[in-house]
């Protein structure tokens, strides 16, 4: 009888909790009484958002709900993530999911980061396996937002999406953290702006638009100035020739009289 009960429990566990067994990330149950949110998150009118956001351990860093990575790949990525965190002193979360729990992709990402116990300075990367095609999002907070600007995020996501679109998820995430590290290193003490080259290398971002605007306006000013100077020079040369021929040493102008006549008003 004892064996039969154990068998039944095992059988139902298999049926009911398949997710728990195969999911690579543990989640915890939030309740209204136990929201499982960081201390600085105020629970007000966002309680529903909090309840709908998966509660995870912020130590794991990889939350592969969509099961895109193998255990081995996760292990390797975790090393890479640790390198990134040690190097940049920023926190990070990498999430894959099939379900946004009713949120938009960006809300999902920010709620995931904010309603779990991640540090203020950090980045989150979400791959949402939409039915049509995967969608990705990168969010940032604290000092990460000054380093990973909108332009950098756009470039980064653009670059990694090439691998995501061919289902090469591991490579995409590996590249993602390589790029994050690269941009972080280049933000330290260097004034040059970099962008991602076609091979994932870092090349100096040349602000062509600014350069062209600058050179056009400078050119306009220089040409305008030069022409004005030349025209003025010509005008000056053409002054009354007799001015130059007047012998000032002989010039006498005497006032013979200067008499008041009358006053009129108008």
């Amino acid at each position, binding site marked *: 009888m004892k064996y039969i009960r154990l068998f039944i429990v095992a059988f139902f566990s298999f049926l009911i909790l398949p997710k728990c067994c195969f999911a690579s990330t543990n989640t915890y149950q939030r309740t209204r009484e136990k929201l499982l949110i960081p201390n600085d998150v105020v629970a007000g009118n966002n309680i529903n958002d909090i309840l709908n956001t998966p509660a995870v351990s912020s130590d794991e860093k990889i939350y592969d709900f969509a099961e895109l990575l193998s255990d081995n790949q996760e292990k390797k990525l975790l090393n890479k993530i640790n390198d990134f965190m040690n190097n940049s002193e920023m926190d990070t979360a990498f999430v894959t999911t099939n379900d946004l729990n009713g949120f938009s992709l960006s809300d999902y990402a920010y709620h995931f980061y904010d309603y779990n116990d991640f540090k203020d300075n950090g980045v989150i990367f979400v791959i949402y396996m939409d039915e049509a095609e995967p969608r990705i999002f990168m969010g940032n907070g604290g000092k990460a937002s000054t380093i990973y600007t909108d332009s950098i995020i756009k470039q980064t996501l653009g670059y990694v999406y090439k691998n995501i679109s061919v289902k090469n998820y591991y490579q995409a995430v590996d590249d993602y953290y390589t790029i994050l590290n690269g941009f972080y290193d280049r933000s330290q003490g260097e004034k040059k702006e970099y962008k991602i080259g076609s091979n994932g290398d870092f090349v100096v971002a040349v602000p062509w638009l600014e350069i062209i605007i600058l050179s056009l306006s400078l050119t306009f000013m220089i040409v305008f100035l030069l022409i004005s100077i*030349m025209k003025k020079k010509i005008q000056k040369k053409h002054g009354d020739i007799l001015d130059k021929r007047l012998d000032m040493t002989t010039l006498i102008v005497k006032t013979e009289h200067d008499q008041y006549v009358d006053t*009129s*008003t108008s």
Partner: protein
Amino acid sequence: MSGYNSELQSLPSNLDFNTNSESTISVFRCEKCGTVFQNKGGEKKCLLCNHDSLVEEQITVSDERLYIIPFIKSQKEAIFNYKKAVFWNPFVPMFFKKKSTIMNIKKIYLPSYFLEVHVDGNVSFFAGDKSKVKKNGEKVFETKRYDVLLSTNFDYFPFFVSTYSKLPEELFELVCEVKNPILQEYDDSLIKDVSVVQSDIENVDVAAMIREKVNKHCLSTIRKGIKHQLKKVQQNDLQIHSNSIKKVLCPVYLLTISYRGHDYYYLMNGENGRDYAQICFGKIEIAIFSLFLVIIISLISYLIVMYL
């Protein structure tokens, strides 16, 4: 001009060069611009407009005492000076810099008068000062009027006046503003290979032109001596005398550049190298220079972004 008294001008009599003897000379007349010149240089085209429809004819001229300034500067120097004036200016059209254009520089003598002018006499002015005053609580303009009489006396350094009307006057003045030119009595041998442009302004017109110019300049000079705001000539009794007046052939190098319906001139004094180039700015040249500048500035900015 208010109060202008032409009877008191003594200049016309000084321009009376009439002599009894006359002679006939052979000249070329340009059918296009009307320039008449003694073609000693063997020119096949007009000295001024480069047109080739020249008609040979005989004219009678009075034998007047004539002076000439010998050429000191060579044609090579004229070409060099012209190039200096236009080559480094990026806005000057390429046409100005073409060899075929430059080769048209001509060595010529221009007819002129060289005169010393003395001015004296009185000018009376209506003068006044305008000010805003309050009268019966209302703001009104009050003008105080004065009667001013100035006497003046001064000389001009000797200057040249061109008697060839087809070349812009100011161009001639700019180039031939010389303090002590070397004047020599005219001698045919001095003009053996140089064409001589014939005067096309009557003596009486030259005198009138000089009078007007000098009179205008005198008035603008002496009215600076009036300490009132408003000044208007009432009576002009200025006398313009010329102590010395000579007919002189001025040595010049002339280049006419006909570009897009306009004639531009380069003139260089053959005695002292004083020159002036009339130029224009070409749209294409401005565009090319601007493009060049844009590229250079962009390149410098790029290098700064990349390596600094």
